[in-house]
């Protein structure tokens, strides 16, 4: 049975992604800072640590067999006015999003290319497409992921590996606190669908790209409630 690594597997989106992929018959290795009890294999890992990440990928592969799927859903959000963003905060955002994507993808790609089979999905953000105030460091990091996805897609397509992204809009997860501006009724009324995306809807997009979208690569799906059209 094919196996897939999901990072951020303990988060609101991550848990929904694990569930949908398992529903499709995949075995899932969950990578997070805390255990992922729903996953078939759980790794507690700091994705900013290259050696630790590579070792976790090896253990997951030893436990579940060849890993042909990777969903990069680990993330971190903060809202800071552009002029207040420190070098450390900007670099940290890049490392959490782009760096973690690179490290896991680099560990998995040799095997995928050898088997001529693989599918990678990075969870980006609607903010990487449409931007948002006080989001420059976050949007830059997520935008960098989209650039990496498109380039990697072109690079590994001849080897039969697909690379895509999902750019969710504001999603109803614990990452969105109850006082978040995205939960403000006035904001929701301005959204075309009038509702936040649900983690399951984001997970359905990931599931499509991993399991069904066999002629899709370099593409981004946008479950964003119509926030960016």
């Amino acid at each position, binding site marked *: 049975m094919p196996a897939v690594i999901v990072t951020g597997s303990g988060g609101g989106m991550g848990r929904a992604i694990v569930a949908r992929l398992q529903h499709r018959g995949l075995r899932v290795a969950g990578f997070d800072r805390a255990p992922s009890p729903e996953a078939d294999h759980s790794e507690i890992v700091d994705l900013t640590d290259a050696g630790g990440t590579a070792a976790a990928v090896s253990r997951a592969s030893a436990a579940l067999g060849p890993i042909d799927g990777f969903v990069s859903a680990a993330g971190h959000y903060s809202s800071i006015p552009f002029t207040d963003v420190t070098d450390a905060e900007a670099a940290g955002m890049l490392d959490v999003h782009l760096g973690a994507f690179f490290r896991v993808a680099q560990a998995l790609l040799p095997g995928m290319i050898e088997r001529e089979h693989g599918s990678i999905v990075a969870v980006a953000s609607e903010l990487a497409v449409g931007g948002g105030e006080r989001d420059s460091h976050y949007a830059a990091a997520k935008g960098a992921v*989209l650039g990496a996805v498109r380039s990697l897609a072109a690079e590994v397509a001849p080897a039969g590996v697909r690379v895509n*992204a999902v750019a969710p*809009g504001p999603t109803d997860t614990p990452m969105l606190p109850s006082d978040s501006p995205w939960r403000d009724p006035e904001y929701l009324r301005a959204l075309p669908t009038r509702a936040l995306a649900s983690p399951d809807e984001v997970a*359905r997009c990931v599931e499509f790209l991993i399991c069904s*979208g066999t*002629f899709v690569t370099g593409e981004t799906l*946008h*479950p*964003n*409630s119509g926030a960016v059209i």
Partner: protein
Amino acid sequence: MSKPHTPSSVRRIALVTGAAGGLGTAQVEALSEAGMQVVAHARTASHRLDALAERTGAIPAVRDLADPEATRALVRETVESTGRLDVLVANHATMSMSALVAADPDEWWRVVRTNLLGTFALTQEAVRAMRAHGDGGRIVIISSEWGVTGWPNASAYAASKAGLISLVKCLGRELAPEGILVNAIAPGVIDTPQLQVDADDAGVDLQTMHGRYAEGIPLGRVGHATEIAEAVRFLADPALAAMAGQIMQINGGATRGRV
């Protein structure tokens, strides 16, 4: 607020236009397999359409969508025969190739009229039908990679398909508040009978034509109709309501996110 949705006791009804073509046939099969009652439209009666209806349980419907009145009648007849409409897949299209300066204006406009105005009339009538039951709906409009990138000698087709992308963006915004989600799929080169036409035009055999197209596609092959049909099924799913006004580009990596 709760999103409008079809009660689970009700069988969802889908209308697929251009169902006798390569893409449409696979869409009818996928939506039927997903449990929907499909009305399969084609411009002319054919053994192919009858066989599809026989195989999937779809209801065949023959109309020329170059005629707006016939187009509206198709939707009304769908509702009359099935009771409701939940999903519209605007898949029909016509194409003719010509350099712009040499183009016959009547032929140029026939392409735009069928692809863009036909979809306009179809969608307008479908929205009325979806509003009648108030459970929302899904509209999937089949655009084209050439509507994103343009293509030499395909100005009428590309303009009509680019027009569909703008139509989807507007309707995505306009109709999402009532639970009618409008999205587009822009397929790249897909293995349909059209490729034989292209091969005949180029004076080569089908396999050579496949190879020529594949050279421009990162995945190194043309697509299959089932790969577009899977995306139609995905967008038609009532459990997915967060996508509105979006364009899914399915082309083996040829455009990579360009819209």
